[in-house]
């Protein structure tokens, strides 16, 4: 156990935990955040995705000790229902969800990729999503929503 500072969605928290604790459990159990979810615990599906200094990482296989001073942003840190982030708005406009459990992986992976590669074409976007799962297979709408957001970052 040790007191560890953690910067999440613009606020600094101090948690007193085993540094080996997966970041996902810290976010869900200690900070009561709902965005990142336990999908597989193996880094295979993407449901637990958060942004770490703007990069999409899988919080279920990231120990607390690996976070350091990096800034974490979860799905709820991007925007609010009243004022969603443009990529969240694109998902709302395209009705791009069924159960919605996978959305942290889908939205944050796409956002992190497009923010770094604003000129990426659809094949590159596809590659970026090669390890993100949606088991409701809402793919058609999700790809449309991501493409809609891509157009805004390309400008």
């Amino acid at each position, binding site marked *: 156990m040790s007191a560890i500072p953690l910067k999440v969605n613009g606020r600094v928290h101090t948690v007193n*935990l*085993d540094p080996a*604790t*997966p970041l996902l*459990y810290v976010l*869900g*159990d200690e900070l*009561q*955040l*709902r*965005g990142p*979810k*336990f*999908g*597989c*615990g*193996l880094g*295979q*599906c993407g*449901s637990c995705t958060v942004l770490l200094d703007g990069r999409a990482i899988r919080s279920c296989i990231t120990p607390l000790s690996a976070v350091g001073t990096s800034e974490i942003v979860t*799905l*709820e*840190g*991007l*925007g*609010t*229902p009243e004022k*969603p982030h443009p990529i*969240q708005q694109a*998902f*709302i406009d395209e*009705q791009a*969800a*069924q*159960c*919605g*459990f*996978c*959305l*942290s992986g*889908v*939205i944050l992976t796409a956002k992190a990729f497009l923010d770094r590669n604003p000129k990426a074409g659809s094949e590159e*976007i*596809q590659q*970026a*999503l*090669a*390890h*993100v*799962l*949606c*088991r*409701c*297979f*809402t*793919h*058609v*709408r*999700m*790809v449309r929503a991501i493409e809609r957001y891509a157009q805004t970052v390309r400008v």
Partner: protein
Amino acid sequence: MSPSLSRRNFLKTSGALIVSFSAATLLDPLALAQGPFGTHMSHIDPGQLDSWIAVGADGLVTAYTGKCDFGQGMATVQTQLIAEELRVPLDRVRLIQCDTSVTPDEGTTSGSQSTPVNFNTSGLAQAAATAREALLGLASRRLRVPVSRLTIAAGVINAPAGKRISYAQLIGGKHFNLKLNPAARRRPPSEWTVLGQPVPSMDISSLATGRFEFVHNVRVPGMLHGRVVRPPAIGSTVISVDEASVRDLPGVVKVVVLKNFVGVVAEKQWQAEQAARQLKVNWTPPVALPPQQTFYDYMRKQPSRDMLVVDSQDVEQKLAGASTVLRATYAYPYQMHGSIGASCALADVQGDKATVWSPTQSVYPTRSGVATLLGLSPENVRVIFTRGAACYGLNGADTVSYDAALLSQAVHRPVRVQLTRKDEMAWGENYGQACVIDQRAALDAKGNVIAWECESWAASFGGRPGYDHPGNVITGLLAGFEPQTVVPQRASQPTGELRNGHNLVPSYLTGCISGKCGGAGSVASERVLAHTVISPFFTGPLRSPLRLQNTFAHECFMDEISARVKADPVAYRLQHLRDERMIGVVKAAARAAGWEPRPSPNPHSSSSGIATGRGMACVAYEGDNGYVALVAEAEVDRATGGVRVKRFVAAADCGPVSNPAGLRNQIEGGALQGMSRALGEEVTWNEHQITSTSWATYHSLPLGIEVPAVETVLLNRPDAEATGAGELSITAVAAALGNAIFDATGARLREAPFTPARVKAALAARNSV
């Protein structure tokens, strides 16, 4: 205020609201009544209007439903239903879903039954229509104006000369004290303003911004974390558990052992996870499993429970005298629900009372199951549906609810259980059934089908626990309850109505029993025999259970026949169909797809490199619960055996369309989920255990694929009954894709999934002919 405190407050508030509206009847233990949905007695009488609808003093309409939303859009469309029937704005409706303390028992939300039950003239729709007529009657008396001269807008009833009275003034905060009126008239679709509209999903904003509360997010004060320790292999039982093996770990509260159920409870989730990994359990050796390579043959040799669905008793004779007889065997593997989230539940067992936050599709049956497991009375168990990752049938939702209940009872504190991915895939869920299906058809000299015989074997074990069989899922079995299994039985001649709920009968048969014909087709010489054998693994109703497997076999075989007689597969289907709604969807899909009438295989397809083809499949889901035809266009890479789907065109007829946007979402998702299942998904095992235990070994198509276009044609039929819709497109995908691969290459895939290896083998077999 912390979220956990607010949850308690929410429940308290929500409870208080209910008490003020309707609890006097809802919670009256003397009001036990039999539900109309094959359910058990419940304290909430489904015959009473107050069990379904309450109007608050503020005019807010609260509706209580036993059909809940897993992501299929059932919350949005039921809200539309209430808004439509009661003529109130959508934002003046509050829907309470599946909570055994306050909602009527509507059994399980499954089987494409939510729309038939709640959107025709029973259940929620009947309640809403009863409420509207009752309110009009009350207003008529209060305003002294005949009902015929009253109109309703936004929860206010208006009479000529400016007289008006609101719902809140009429009944706000009071009971209706009325029975559901079977004669209450639904508002006709021609007058709908809210139903029938593409109302956007009501939860999308909270989902996209991470605010939505899944069961995984529920936290209550004093909550502990549990993990289960499942047997390492099938058939292993507990010899001993070394509790000392986790004594050195911090935070461990208890090791729980109940017969073969083993779990650990700890203060923190990470501690529970480590303890579950470290706990030493001595298990008995496993049983030997039948080899996967020969499993379909193995199934044929098992004792079976047999059912003759139709038998015109002249099939052998017709086959013997036919100019051409075709035969083929199709095989479909065990597949997983494979929910994106490993299942999770939270239970709080205190003394003789229990509360379970559960992602189950079946709150009342789960209440009974939990009560049985814990030795409590069902009345003292409250199961609150809280959405998990979408389930598509019987994933780990029920079993993890049992896990949480057992662990909470052992420690007298609330326990949240999160299954691991392996728990879910190796044990937690009840797989979709493996099937092997033999087809035989006799053709006359003109190439018409004159006789069709279908004989199938499906493996079954356990299933939905229902009210009485907690052993039908793994936790119940481990805790000592027997699963339902297959009792061998010979088939008798069919009597009564045609029972085609599993789509055992191909659409082209007349389906006649004692002169009464329930089939969709014209082939009168028919025999359909189904064998059910014992499965070595738990099985359950994975989206389109058996309907998908059987449709794969029927629709591919129909395609084989049409190819043999060099007929266009669409025209040939139409030639053998009688049902107007089937004919309607087939024609609509072909038209929308720009179907070129010609026989398969595709004469324009390349004989090397990438081959292109199209395939059609159609089905009357469960015989009469929705109609779909699907065209698939695909490319086959002859070198790699890879299949790339370019386009799906689906035409669906499910009666009056309640929400076209939600319906399209279901059809699109079903098409692509079906594609993933047809191309890559297969449960695998070795001598003793399941080997597909993660996404590395169970192959789901990721988001990063070239996503095919999915076009949907909705045939709206306002005058028909509302049917199910969520399982339509998926039922036809494997067949449509198999037919497209044949059209592209002339190679017939008769075993799913169509992996590159199987495609290459089929191409090689074709080339060697």
